[in-house]
């Protein structure tokens, strides 16, 4: 039951248009970064956890990511628990 952190990455699904990523890509191209092929913009969350076993942390973070941090229509997520 140590203190842990959860890192959660939320990204727009690849099938969904990402106008923000496109705009950043466009800016990078005009700055001369011609090797950048594509930019996708997402979100990164850090959750400080306390009083959970590693297994509980995993279950809870996955539920939070799925039900709150992500809109499954347009986004997908991945996460990791770090000590």
């Amino acid at each position, binding site marked *: 039951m140590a203190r842990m952190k959860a890192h959660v990455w939320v990204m727009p699904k690849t099938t969904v248009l990402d106008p923000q990523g496109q705009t950043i890509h466009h800016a990078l191209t005009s700055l001369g970064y011609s090797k950048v092929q594509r930019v996708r913009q997402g979100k990164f969350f850090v959750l400080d956890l306390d009083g959970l076993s590693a297994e509980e942390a995993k279950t809870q973070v996955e539920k939070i990511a799925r039900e709150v941090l992500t*809109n499954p229509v*347009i986004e997908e997520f991945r996460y990791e628990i770090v000590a």
Partner: protein
Amino acid sequence: MKFGVVVFPGSNCDDDAYHAVGAVLGEHVEFLWHRSEQIPGCDAIILPGGFAFGDYLRTGAIARFSPVMRAVERFARRGGLVLGICNGFQILLEAGLLPGAMLRNRDLRFICRHVHIRVENTDTSFTCAARAGQVLKVPIAHMEGNYFCDPETLADLERNRQIVFRYTTPEGRLEDSANPNGSLAAIAGICNRERNVMGMMPHPERAVEAPLGSADGLVIFRSMVESLTRHQTGSNAEVKASVPA
């Protein structure tokens, strides 16, 4: 007949909706704070525009977990009329009461201007007083109004005639230049399969009197009143009675 206008921290079109229903149409209307766990005696609920909870995380994502939304969901599932306008539409999407999601406007700008929308279906409690194909001039004011859903959902929406409004030219023609935000299939408003929950990005409550530049939005509130009057002794009365006060 009683309308309830939900007020979230960050709602900013609640007074406009209250004015449209109360002052312009002369119907009974009350505000409902987001912490209310009940919506006593309401025949119709309006989720107004604004920036509920600062639109943090995603538009409508925090608001959908408000206590009042549990009551609104129960009310909707029992057939009660629920209208979500702009941010209210976004909240209905997040709550899963309507299908799909909102993306940023395709040009990434906040757009605030009058647009034209065509009534695609008059067989709803929100458009029964309108003419089929009628073009309404109403304002939009949003950053995330670019409606998106997967192809299967879009096919369902088309098949079940759930697309209530589309962005068109003033003459009612579908053109890409008349689509202000890039919405899929130029969708400006949809309803659920049961036709008792509708969400729309344009603001009918800001177009209810000539000095506002248009009174075209009034037809939506009139439709709701007409529909409720027609069903007062029927199914809606049962809905009202079955929702705990």
